[in-house]
């Protein structure tokens, strides 16, 4: 289910949730919903800085809020870290979630997507290192990709 990690939201959407959040911030009455919506749209951004900011907000809600929202946060924290390629952190979150709800297919599938991605990128890294000559690297990678078919 690579799409869950590859999809990006629209910038207008992000601006909309950002505006709501900022307004509440000014009025000193930020709701969890507004924070969560803003954080989610940040995590869906294509820019690492946005994703990081989203993660920060999710961690804040996670630390101060109820069970229900925590569960949602953990899921999106895993997605956020995976998008930043911080896979081991991402897996800590999916693992924590699955400890509580082992049968949750949605999280199982995210967990295995992250593992696959880690493997795939690990393989390519190894191919490059093993190829020694940089020009060879590309060929080796291509060869690997083809032989996997």
């Amino acid at each position, binding site marked *: 289910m690579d799409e869950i990690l590859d999809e990006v*939201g629209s910038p207008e959407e992000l601006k909309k*949730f950002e505006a709501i959040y900022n307004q509440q911030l000014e009025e000193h009455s930020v709701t969890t919903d507004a924070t969560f919506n803003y954080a989610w749209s940040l995590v869906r951004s294509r820019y690492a800085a946005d994703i990081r900011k989203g993660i920060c907000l999710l961690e804040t809600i996670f630390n101060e809020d109820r069970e229900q929202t925590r569960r949602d946060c953990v899921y999106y924290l895993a997605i956020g870290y995976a998008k930043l390629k911080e896979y081991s952190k991402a897996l800590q979150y999916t693992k924590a979630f699955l400890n509580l709800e082992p049968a949750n297919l949605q999280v199982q599938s995210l967990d295995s997507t992250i593992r696959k991605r880690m493997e795939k990128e690990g393989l390519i890294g190894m191919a490059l290192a093993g190829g020694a000559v940089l020009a060879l690297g590309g060929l080796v990678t291509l060869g690997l990709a083809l032989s996997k078919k």
Partner: protein
Amino acid sequence: MSGGPYSYSYIFKYIIIGDMGVGKSCLLHQFTEKKFMADCPHTIGVEFGTRIIEVSGQKIKLQIWDTAGQERFRAVTRSYYRGAAGALMVYDITRRSTYNHLSSWLTDTRNLTNPSTVIFLIGNKCDLDGQRDVTYEEAKQFAEENGLMFVEASAKTGERVEEAFLETAKKIFQSIQDGRLDLNAAESGVQHKPSQTGRTTLSNDQQPNKDTCSC
């Protein structure tokens, strides 16, 4: 090189919407895995599923976004409507309230998708006929009045689940052929992938998909 089982010439984007607990995720799971989940937790945000089907000899990859029905996700799940070629709108035949909310789901869909988006109404859990709270006839009438396609289905038995997903695709495909759906429009929800030799990138991202191996 490209021809293998994972190649396809179109991608259609679908969304599944409706109140929480009506069985959206179970319908998706039944369609992609041919299995029923008896104890399905509420979806967090959105889930994703995919399957390659064939319509008029063309392979089509369905990219299906299954949205969470719980109210608190509504603001964000709305952003997935945009660019959907097909929308499966689900209610539960044993819970009247889920049927009563259809007009608001429909308004949202019409506002957030485009005129060529095919909307298919599914009355789910038809295996529970004894607990029925919405008659077939009234739902059928609602569908006709609003120009929706309609079936009663069961994610549990699998009855008419395929039909709902496939008929939606056929209708979308028809619109493409009639020229009613503009493939170049940014938000048509359809991508055309002319088959060429050497499109390794396409087959690469297809590895996890086991649905086409059913031959």
